[in-house]
């Protein structure tokens, strides 16, 4: 991994750590209606729109790439009953997502990986999503 990539990951880790502070969570609730320490612009209404578009339901498996701390992937799994796999690179963020997944009683996994090189088998997911991740 390049120094530039490492710096970027550290920057995101720091940003997500701050995102868990009470004042940041108050702001997040006011702006998007979520409380995941999220950095995307996806509102709760937009997340619910994703659930409809992706036809999520129990027994289905969702991939959220560039998931950050789990918004909206964990919310989608919680609200529809589907399983979810989250992928991102900053480890601190993935630990937070893992805790949240457990706290919310959601079935799934978190994987440290870039979206471009997913260590996942072919044709395993019924749906995929991301929020404000550059393609």
């Amino acid at each position, binding site marked *: 991994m390049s120094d530039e990539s490492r710096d970027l990951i550290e920057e995101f880790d720091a940003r997500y750590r*701050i995102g868990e*502070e009470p*004042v*940041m969570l*108050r*702001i997040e609730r*006011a*702006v*998007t209606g979520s409380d995941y320490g999220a950095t*995307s*612009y*996806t*509102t709760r209404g*937009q997340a619910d*729109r*994703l659930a409809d*578009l*992706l*036809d999520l339901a129990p027994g289905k498996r969702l*991939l959220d*790439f560039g998931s950050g701390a789990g918004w909206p992937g964990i919310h989608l799994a919680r609200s529809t009953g589907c399983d979810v796999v989250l992928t991102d690179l900053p480890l601190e963020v993935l630990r937070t997502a893992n805790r949240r997944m457990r706290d919310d009683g959601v079935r799934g996994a978190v994987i440290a990986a*870039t*979206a*471009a*090189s*997913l260590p*996942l*088998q*072919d*044709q*395993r*997911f*019924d*749906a*995929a*999503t*991301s*929020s*404000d*991740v*550059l*393609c």
Partner: protein
Amino acid sequence: MLRACSRVLKPGALLSFFVVAAADGVSARDIAAGPEYVDAEPGYPLLMTAAGFDNVDLAEVTDEYAATLSTSIRARDAESAELEDLLGADEFAEGQSSRRQELAAVRDGLLVRYLISAVRP
């Protein structure tokens, strides 16, 4: 990334995602001169098709994006004292300046946000 996504999806699976992108017609020079987050290429339908997706649909959600940005700026202004303690005055001011710059770019038609949906054949 889209190709990797296509690989792991089952045939008939759905992809739906939000993305902030440079508006069609915005030049590479404008993108380079703009805020650092303006880094996305326009032309998502072509990218999606090239990655092997069908039934690509783009819904523009730029108005909602602008509203979310405005709310974000106001909410942070309302919490400025606590945020300055947490981040430092300079970092707080830089962040708010960046958000205002981003909002101006949206209102000037340089930045758009899409909800893109497609099917993996």
